[in-house]
């Protein structure tokens, strides 16, 4: 793997992750597209790619052709990632129809938990009272 290929992979990872950290679902899917490209390129560049296609014409020399196995894996990966893209776009489309945009909002339930601490405290006081039903008579002597 040459320095320039390593640089390209790193750049695509950076750009992809940056996009994945955005609020728009479309940008997130685009980011995943870049991350997929980065992963595929890594596998091929690393997998003994010597420049000659693994196609046999009569005679062959093992060391002279590119390794076919990583190629087969990456071919599978390209197709699978297409499935992922299509499904995620389906979600983005549905979000658009239902909400009018494709923004990924904060999880409402999580925000509620963070906000409603006081209410939970009251629940817990109630739990404490229930456990008190089992309380031994520590105070009975005094009362």
């Amino acid at each position: 793997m040459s320095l320039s290929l390593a640089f390209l992979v790193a750049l695509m990872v950076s750009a992809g992750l940056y996009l994945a950290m955005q609020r728009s679902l479309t940008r997130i899917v685009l980011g995943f597209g870049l991350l997929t490209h980065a992963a595929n390129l890594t596998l091929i560049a690393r997998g003994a790619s010597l420049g000659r296609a693994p196609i046999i014409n009569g005679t062959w020399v093992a060391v002279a052709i590119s390794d076919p196995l990583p190629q087969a894996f990456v071919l599978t990966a390209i197709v699978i990632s297409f499935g992922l893209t299509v499904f995620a776009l389906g979600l983005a489309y549905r979000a658009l129809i239902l909400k009018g945009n494709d923004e990924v909002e904060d999880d409402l339930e999580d925000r509620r938990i963070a906000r409603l601490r006081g209410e939970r405290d009251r629940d817990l006081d109630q739990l404490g009272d229930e456990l008190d039903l089992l309380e031994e008579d520590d105070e009975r002597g005094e009362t």
Partner: protein
Amino acid sequence: MTYLVVAHFAAALVAIPVARRLGGKAFLLAAAVPAATALWSLTVLSRSASTTSPGEVHAWIKGLDVDLSFQAGGLSALMAFLIGGIGVLVFLYSYRYFDPAGPEVVRVCSLLLAFAGSMLGLVLADGFFTLFLFWEATSVTSFFLIGTEFKHAAARAAATQALLITGLGGIAMLVGFTIFGASTGIWHLSGVENAGSQTLTGLPAVALVLIATGCLAKSAQLPFGSWLPAAMAAPTPVSAFLHSATMVKAGVYLIARLSPVLGGGPWRALVIGSAGLTMVLAGWRALRQDDLKLLLAHSTVAQLGLLCFLFAMPDRRAWVAGVVLLLAHALSKAGLFMGVGIIDHSLHTRDISRLDRLASEMRGVAAVMSAGFACMAGVPLTLAFAGKERGLENLMEISPPWFYAAIGLMVVASALTAAYSTYALRGAFFTSAKGDVAVLGRRPSLGFVIPAGVLTFAGIAMALFAKAPEMLLGSAVKGATGKANFGIPVLPHVGSALVISLLALACGVGFGYFDRLRHFASKAALPFPLGQRVYEAINVGLIRFADRLAGVVQSGSLPIYVATITIVGMGLIAWYLAAIDIDLGALPLAGSVVELLLVAACGVLAAAMAVQRSRVTAVLLLGGVGYGLAAVFVVLGAPDLALTQVVIETLAVVVFLLVVKDQPAKFGRTRPVGSEVLKIAAAAFAGVVVFVLLAGSEGYRADHFVSAEIVEFSVADAGAQNVVNAILVDFRALDTMGEILVLTIAVIGAATLAGIETRRRGRA
């Protein structure tokens, strides 16, 4: 042994349909199962005094020293006898106790059988993991039995409390077993015993402390004692069986097994300290109770403390006293609980202040309970007296100074036992009610009282006919001390031990008899919070802490999650990279000029994509990167990939455009500028780490060409000149099948997501 244990669980299953049909009579049938246990244990006890019976081992996980193994030593057989014998009486008692058509009959009958099986498995277990398995099984069955009246919040809370405390103790024990086994290579109790006396240091000593912690939790010793009084929410037969006679003895049992052979480390001090404190404090608490059942619960905690205390002593003569008291306590306490259950059943109260001179109306119950309290308190001519006197005698013979403290503790504990026994007996049966008088409903039938009577009078009978306890205890004592003949004195020796025990007894009886003295005790609250309050504080505190933590960590924002994952994941890789040698200069800049140009083009497109605000342009840029990569693949010698990439990229761009066309033309702006800086920083950090990883690890490659064989067989076997095709459709055809399946599912999903809305729109 295995069959006997399995039979219990099978019976527990069969009991469900049978009890549905027969109602309460099912208890009578079920009693046959513990009866079989009792008979079997008697044959073992009569035999194993001379020979040790062989164990049974069933392979489980061979590589990990995990097996299912049972062995019946003397102590195990004694425990099995208690489980079986008391079990029979508990089932007979349950027949009278429960409403024959009541909803809890099926539940209790089946669960009691399952519990008896778990407990039997526990005491017969030889392998550590077998022991742990049944140990936790008793915790779980106990959980369900305490929660029999699950409609009451108190019963549910009590069941959870018992499960949490004994379950956590069990996990500490499992960790202990694992450390012990891994550091000594011994994975069986029999192995520990065969290895002989040893003094442990280092890891095994730590392991032993963990195991002892599990024992203390199970036997409700400080600081884990709170669950047992709470567990009184269970029906009385359950309390009599699980929470006085058998399950709570599990911790005592294990301490008794390990104590004779394993010394060293702080475990003995831990158990002796905890149990010593427990037997005095819990005795004090028992004295403050007005509810008879709670009084018995606290008294159980105190008596278990005495047993742990004696068994943990390094001297084996204290062990002998312990095993005598173990038998005495199991018999008397189970009987006492049954007695309280009868009172509760007939008068609908257990409050001492509401019971009015019961002795005149319930003579049988009064006699049974008197015998029970006498046996527990250790009045002369009972088994407990013999055991306690023996314990005192032995402690006095050994003379390091802290044994005087031990004797002092035992005397105080005995006095307290006598005190609350006197108080309970006198208050319930021989004095008038102080509050409103409880009215006697139905008189208890003889069949209801007999099981309790058998148990409480057995404690007296065994002291008079010493052959019986010697037969029951003989092989246990021989196993622990090597001596078969130990002798239980019917008449006490005249000596200082006798004087001390009588003095303690007299003090206790006096203290319990005179209301004014007891009143003083009930006024004096304990100086530090115990049990329930601590449990409650931990419980509420944990939930509160979890709330705070969730509020901070679980922000609900996807960008924050992705940024966190990126920084942590890449940080870990960076941390690892920092430790190895990396030579960045070893790589060529590029394989060829074409490659360099393509890389430059792809890089520019990808970077532009990240900052592009127009949707359509961003999508087209992604397509551009994809086509660029296809060209790179050609340069790298992968034409099949290039073809696939072009086709898929084209399709993807089309699908993208279909979705994007209905959306706003531009992406919205990120709101806070600070978060934008964080995202760029995290992404840049990831890029740097990936670059160093890829460039730096090139020198660590081991093999450059992995598919020589595939290439060789491609033409001959698959008839393919294109090796990649041969792999996809022949050598790894199943993978390709899976891939097609995944793709199909994804497309169906996407079509459904998009289609539902279209249909709805069409209708509107």
